[in-house]
C-alpha cells in the first residue's frame, strides 16, 4: 500500500512484487492512467493523510480475507499528473488466476468510489472539481 507523490513506475513495482511472491501461480495487474480526454491539461489528486492510507490498508485486508491471495499491491498517485500518466497500480498474486483477477477488480472498484481522494482537472486554464459518479457506486454493488 503506497501513496506516490512522484512518478508511478509500474514496471519496477510489478517486478519487485513478482519477486516477493515466487510461489504465486499468477499475478493479475491493472494500471489506470489519466484519460486523455478533450482539453484536459492536468489532473490533481488531493488526499488526507490520516484517512487515505489507512483506508487503502483496510481495503487490502478485506480483499485478503475474501480471496486466497499470496499478496496484494495498491499504489496510488497523488499530486498533479498529465494525461497518459499512470495514476493507480493494483496487482494481486494468487495460486489460481480467478482469485487474482477478482481481487484486482474488487480493489479497483473500491478505490474508484470509496478511497479518500479528491480530484480536479484543469481544462482551458481553469480548475474544475470532479464530482462522484453514479457508475462508481453501482460498480460497488457487484461485491455486496
Amino acid at each position, binding site marked *: 500500500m503506497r501513496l506516490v507523490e512522484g512518478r508511478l513506475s509500474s514496471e519496477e513495482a510489478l517486478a519487485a512484487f513478482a519477486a516477493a511472491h515466487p510461489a504465486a501461480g499468477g499475478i493479475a495487474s491493472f494500471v*489506470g492512467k489519466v484519460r486523455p480526454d478533450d482539453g484536459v491539461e492536468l489532473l490533481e*489528486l*488531493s488526499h*488526507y*493523510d*490520516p*484517512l487515505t492510507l489507512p483506508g487503502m490498508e483496510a481495503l487490502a485486508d478485506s480483499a485478503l480475507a475474501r480471496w486466497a491471495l499470496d499478496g496484494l499491491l495498491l499504489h*496510488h498517485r497523488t499530486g498533479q499528473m498529465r494525461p497518459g500518466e499512470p*495514476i*493507480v497500480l493494483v496487482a494481486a498474486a494468487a495460486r489460481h488466476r480467478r482469485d487474482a483477477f477478482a481481487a484486482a477488480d474488487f480493489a479497483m472498484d473500491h*478505490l*474508484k*468510489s*470509496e*478511497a*479518500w*481522494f*479528491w*480530484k*480536479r482537472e484543469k481544462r482551458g486554464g481553469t*480548475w474544475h*472539481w*470532479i*464530482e*462522484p*459518479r453514479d457508475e*462508481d457506486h453501482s460498480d460497488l454493488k457487484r461485491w455486496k
Partner: protein
Amino acid sequence: MAVKLLFLGKLADIAGAPDSEVPGPLDWQGLLAGLPAALAEAARGDKVKLALNGTILAERAKLAAVDGDEVALLPPVSGG
C-alpha cells in the same frame, strides 16, 4: 493553541485556504457559526463528513473539539 480546521477538496477553494484556526472548545454549531456564509452553507451539506484528529465522526452534531485538535471537513470523495 487553537482548533485547526482543514478543508478538503472543493471546500478549500470556497474557503480560499486549505486550513484555518479557531479558538476551542468547538462544537458543530460553533464551527458553522465561525465560517464565512458560503463555506458554512457548503459544509452543512448532508454528504460532508467530519473527522476529529483523523477519525470520522458518526454524527457531526456530536463534535467536541478542544485546543490542539484537528477537525477536517470532508466533501464527498471523487475517487481514485
